[in-house]
């Protein structure tokens, strides 16, 4: 009885959050404003649509929304790197590994999921690249570039999908915490001249928000309070690390913060916070709580 009530309350919360985001997004599209927070809201909406479909049907449906997100992120990444003519087969292989990996999440085969991209796709891509043509110069860089994008955009984001299969609210927990950090980093992230100081200040300022929120959510997420608090302190640090490292990648790809279009760094910019946070949180939960 109590269980059913909680689940209905959580569903209602999810639906309300999604509808709110939808309304905000529609207003944004009509008013044609463009800023970081606006595009950020779109991607948060995508996450909530994913959670809502998971809540209504099953996580098995919800993960395919994430798969679509991975696809758009990967497509953007490949649009930004240099591709030789003979890498095309390898890139096709990279795209095909998206359904491969998400299918493994769907059938809940953890052992295979965790090695799908790090082992099998990783081995397949050099083969595909070598089948693509005769040019040998630049092969190492090509394979490295393809694998890197695949790990970030598919494997790391895929961990959110597996988190969904544990419990939907565990994934919501991650997205909310990440969103709090992102907003704080957006407003405070470049106040000081020293990058390290910036990172540290952002982390400190996130804590008073993320720890209480994590603690409050622990009833729905099913994470014990102590672990909730640890995660609440850990996620901001991971988000900041994610930002810092992805910024260097972005700069090398020629993406600057003042010109962000979809297909020109926007998707990667909005997902960068998850690249570190999602896998680490997933493995934390898997190690301590299952």
């Amino acid at each position, binding site marked *: 009885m109590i269980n059913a009530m909680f689940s209905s309350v959580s569903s209602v919360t999810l639906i309300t959050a999604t509808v709110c985001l939808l309304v905000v997004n529609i207003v944004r599209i009509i008013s044609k404003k463009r800023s970081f927070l606006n595009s950020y809201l779109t991607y948060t909406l995508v996450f909530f649509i994913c959670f809502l479909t998971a809540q209504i049907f099953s996580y098995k449906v919800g993960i395919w929304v994430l798969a679509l997100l991975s696809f758009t992120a990967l*497509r*953007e990444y490949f*649009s*930004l790197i*240099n591709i030789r003519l003979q890498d095309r087969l390898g890139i096709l292989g990279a795209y095909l590994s998206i359904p491969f990996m998400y299918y493994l999440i769907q059938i809940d085969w953890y052992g295979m999921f965790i090695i799908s991209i790090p082992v099998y796709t990783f081995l397949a891509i050099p083969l595909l690249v070598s089948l693509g043509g005769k040019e040998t110069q630049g092969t190492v860089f090509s394979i490295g570039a393809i694998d890197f994008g695949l790990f970030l955009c598919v494997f790391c984001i895929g961990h959110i999908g597996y988190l969904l299969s544990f419990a939907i609210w565990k994934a919501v927990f991650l997205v909310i915490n990440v969103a709090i950090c992102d907003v704080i980093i957006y407003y405070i992230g470049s106040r000081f001249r020293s990058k390290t100081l910036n990172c540290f200040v952002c982390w400190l300022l996130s804590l008073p928000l993320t720890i209480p929120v994590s603690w409050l959510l622990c009833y729905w997420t099913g994470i014990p309070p102590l672990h909730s608090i640890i995660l609440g302190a850990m996620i901001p640090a991971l988000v900041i690390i994610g930002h810092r490292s992805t910024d260097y990648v972005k700069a090398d790809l020629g993406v600057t913060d003042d*010109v962000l279009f979809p*297909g020109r760094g926007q998707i990667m910019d909005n997902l960068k916070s998850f690249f570190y946070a999602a896998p680490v949180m997933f493995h934390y939960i898997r190690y301590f709580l299952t």
Partner: protein
Amino acid sequence: MMRERISSLIRIAVHVILLRPLVKLIFGVSVLGRDNFDFADKFIIISNHNSHLDILLLFSLLPLSKISITHPVAEETYFSKSKIIYFLVGFLLQPIWITRGKPEKGSDPFAGIKAQLDSGHNVIIFPEGSRGKPGEMQSFKSGIGRLVVQYPGLPIIPVYLSGPERSLPKASYLLLPLWNHIIIGPPQICTGTHKEITRQLESVLTGLSHSESARQRQRKATSESPPLSVAVLGIDGSGKSTISKHIAVRFSAESSTCLISDRLDLYENTEVKVVQPLGYEKVRKVISNYAKKAKSLKLYKIPKMTELLLRNHLYFEVRRWYNPEMIVMDGSPLLNMTAWAVLYRDRMLDEETCAKIIMLLTGREEELKPDDPIFSEFKESQYFRSLKLNNLILPDIVIFIDLYPETANTRIAKRGEDRQVHETSEKLARLREAYKMVCKVIRDRWDIPVSIIDGEESLEAVSAVAERFITEVIRRKEGKNDPTD
């Protein structure tokens, strides 16, 4: 009439329900300037052409009411190879079929296009003619000007597409999902002669491709451009080592240069940069000394050949370790060897064979047919290939110092050094002819700028001419990459 309306409805439905979402979902599309379509009721769309995807992207831009009354111009023979594709293209895109080649006398090549324009329909034209090199715009064919001149006042909408050349390049059948960026320029009204119109439209589309918004959408080119290699050719005694040194010093004022001559020097700000000599260079010096002191041709050839190969390898070593912006080479191993090949065959070779030898030496055998007689004629090429020595570099700029063998002989005599075995008047004369032919071949075949300078003048004068030529070529190259400046 009724039938036409139904098929038009089906067409629009297929476009809206199937094609457009598919294009949007698989290939991301970002469009800038869509409102430029609002100001024109009847128009011609011109666009750069790199891929078969172009036409689908252009159709996804059109307002719904225009889908059925817009016609791309396409070549019939290309699409009529497969019946299904021919039908689908014909139904969905309603192209105006044209045939390539010279039109028959008396017939108007634009008849089909004009008929559609006269009945109030719109036309999509790719003025480059065919799909060009990926990411590069070719010069416009004159057809667009000849057509537009007959329709004064008809707006022409330039559309710049970037991305299709990566999603579906001409050289590949593999379709990959990658982003496409489309920039629609403001409608143009053109007046003047057909040549002026063609030029004007070309500059509009080029301008669009270099506009700020296009640049923001471009990927950053992360690949390092290879250094510019300059080869100074000439028979012995023409002063090519002095001249190549002059050139290296002169250009080091602007960029770091490297001189591969009897010794290897790096220059920066017109001064020699002190570096640790490369191992290969030491070996080369020993061998080169050995070649110089050789008493007979047989003893000369093999060390000289090794020296040339090492010299070629030095190019890669220098690129790898120092990465200068310009490499000046005293002689070019590839061209030297080709010239020697021409020289030592009993009969003079023709230009065709000469080009084939260059292909063999630079590892471009794929351009030759496998049963080409050159393979049996030059059996050495197989050893070259199996030893992976067929990687000789083709220089970007060639300077040939032309000199009478007699002058060369007196100059060699003046140097007072021991004469190398091959330096006889008759040999030098033939070598000179061989070089001339090689220069002609690379200029005609590979479009490499070659400057033939009269070597009878003083070395300073020759260097000055060579420097001017190189500056001119560099300027032209930069202009090609970046016309906005």
